[in-house]
């Protein structure tokens, strides 16, 4: 048995597949691909699949890591070829490699966000005000969580999770490039940041597309 990290690009219609459904999709995909997978040894054996960084519904990603465990001596290239052949529209396998970093190394994620407003003025105001708000270092938002099965709401300062932030307006559009905390210790969901900015600026875009570009380690190098 050996561990492999599958790198997945998720875009277009596939961004509406939720994290739980992605699990189910891949459970079936690995069966279609006829890989020799390692199965868990419980009462109900199933292949080992672990998405390291669940992606929010509606977001795209350039590179999602999925850890799997396989048996036998099929080459990584063959596994990539077989998986690629059985994917639904919008999901591409960009690489299959031995994991280099442990999952706990994930510290940040880089995002590309496109917002479209109803008019140029709203766009440029949103870009300007967001830059100022982020630079001020204070932006509170309510973060919903769960504790012991109960829903909880706690107030957080989203700026604590922003490592870098650029926003520029271009006509009705606003482009944001941001690096946000990710991983198990602390993480900031890009949707939470956006909704906090919308609430603060009282400006709402008509269309949003969030794309995760890459995952980073604490030292700023690529998570691999």
């Amino acid at each position, binding site marked *: 048995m050996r561990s492999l990290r599958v790198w997945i690009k998720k875009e277009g*219609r596939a961004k*509406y*597949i939720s994290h739980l459904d992605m699990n*189910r999709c891949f*459970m079936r995909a690995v069966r279609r691909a006829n890989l020799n997978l390692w199965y868990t040894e419980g009462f109900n054996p199933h292949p080992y699949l672990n998405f390291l960084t669940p992606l929010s519904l509606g977001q795209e990603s350039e590179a999602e890591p999925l850890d799997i465990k396989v048996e036998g001596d099929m080459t990584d290239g063959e596994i990539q070829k077989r998986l690629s052949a059985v994917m*639904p529209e919008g999901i591409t396998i960009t690489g299959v490699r031995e994991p280099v970093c442990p999952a706990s190394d994930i510290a940040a994620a880089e995002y590309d966000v496109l917002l479209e407003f109803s008019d140029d003025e709203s766009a440029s105001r949103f870009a300007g005000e967001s830059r100022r708000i982020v630079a001020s270092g204070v932006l509170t938002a309510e973060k919903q969580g769960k504790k012991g099965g109960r829903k909880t709401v706690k107030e957080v300062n989203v700026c604590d999770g922003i490592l870098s932030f650029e926003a520029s307006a271009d006509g009705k559009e606003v482009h944001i490039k941001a690096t946000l905390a990710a991983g198990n210790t602390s993480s900031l969901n890009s949707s939470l940041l956006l909704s906090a900015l919308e609430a603060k600026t009282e400006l709402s875009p008509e269309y949003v597309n969030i794309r995760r570009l890459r995952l980073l380690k604490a030292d700023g190098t690529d998570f691999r």
Partner: protein
Amino acid sequence: MLSKKLEKILNTVQKPGRYTGGELNSVIKNRESVKIRYAFCFPDTYEIGMSHIGMKILYSLVNARSDTWCERVFAPWVDMEERMREAGLPLYALESGDAIAGFDIIGFTLQYELSYTNMLNMLDLAGLPVRSRDRKSLTPLVIAGGPCVCNAEPVCEFVDLFLPGEGEEVTNELIDLLIGYKEKGAGKSEFLRAAAEIEGVYVPSLYDVSYNGDGTVASVTPRGGAPEKVKKRVVRDLDKMFFPESFVVPSIEIVHDRTTAEIFRGCIRGCRFCQAGFIYRPIREKSPEVIDRQCRSICATSGYDEISLSSLSSSDYTRMEELLSLLIPWTDREKTNIALPSLRADNFKKELMDRLTGIRRSSLTFAPEAGTQRLRDAINKNLTEDEILSTARQAFAGGWTSVKLYFMIGLPTETDEDVLGIAGLAQKVVDEFYNNPDKPKGKSVNVSVSVASFVPKPFTPFQWEPQDSIEELLKKQELVRSSVKTRKISLSFHKTNTSRLEAVLARGDRRLADVIETAWRGGCRFDGWDDMFRFDIWEQAFSECSLSMDFYANRRRSFDETLPWEHTDYGIGRSFLERENKKARENAATPNCREKCAGCGANSLNGGECHALFKGLD
């Protein structure tokens, strides 16, 4: 690629994956290179429609033609509907994203009466008039199939033509005909007259219905060469019947997320309340080799890890042992489960269950339907108390601790004693658990009893019977409730209003079109969903249209009456149904078709052939 207009909406609705398409194995064609665009519409949510095997078969069958592109359409949930109407986004097909108003065929499958308002709503969302007569051009042609079409009368104002029976063959014949008429620029009425000549096509506008003073049907007169009786189509040989090599694999979780393999059509049992038991006759079995081959192909192309062997009564399949011996070696190896729904309590074999090692031990379900032997005989549920209890005993010995029992109230000839018998039988099942020396230690038993209300349906021996009034049904529910003395039995009841509307629509006539349209305009949709059902709007619609629900639901029909659906021929003879109805009054059971042919007449649809007379391996 999704349009930006759609994407703006998708971010604001629940489960946007319902509306995106792009699933594995969905079929994309070049819209310029096909002659016919076919929108296959399921008038319920994506999760329900995608679970339906008939849709999977017909989708692949139509797409096997290079001249036609079949796409899927489901009823948008109310949040999506609202956003679509706000944004002016018309109903579109999932594969292309194109508005279905521009398609050639819009085909609905009518699986249950409570989806009728959804059909109207989908036509409206498409931007089309809901009434057939208001859609003047040849295309889009609105067609419908599915079990409800055995009495299409309540919805025949909305649909241009119906396909009673099995669609595997007639669909292609209809498409061929439409291509010809479209090419020569023919009009809609000309086409419909020609379509009516295809066996298994019912064009309601070619039939004039007149009524007696009391509201019953006086006569049904065909025009323009349409047949006196429209015979449902059947597929003669299931082994040679088209079957897809792959299913569209949904990216989001659906209700039945697994491979489904049909093992036979029809049912040998003849339970007198059960419409499915009659309208899918005659019995036709599929060979184990064919089922095995199809399962392998679907599993390989879908990646599903569960196969459901489907039929109306799986343990009546004569070649089950043979089938399992083909399936088990490779499904074991690939860790694929085999599920066998619809087992009967009388021939549930322990050996059979032991072979299905992968089966999940969640719960076992049995359907005694009635609480006393007398009533079980009257409804021809040929199942004895001993059989039920011995099956429960086996199940408990095998480690199950939870059993579900399905009953009905309001059955013809029912007395209070029968109603009290429900709790009595459930209690005996509980006792069986505690009498079992091998019962799992330290565990309690849970017997969940689900009580539905009887709905009389066309083409059953009870098609003439009145449904109990709401008051009677509620009284009987109370009687069941008060007779349960233990917490080991948990009770649930179907909503009586829902059953009442189902009864009205199931045996309705053409006059109900106004009621259905009024109810839909009043806001009714997703009537089958308890949280969406608005019985008050339906009542209001009946009163606005000066029609009475009692007339349809609670009236006993005499054998002399012309029933609204009798110009459709499902092979089941009227004399057989009358005979069975009389036997019910005498509490006399009829042997199952394998023991003795009861002469229902359905074999006439199949050149005299019925596989019920196969001698099985048992």
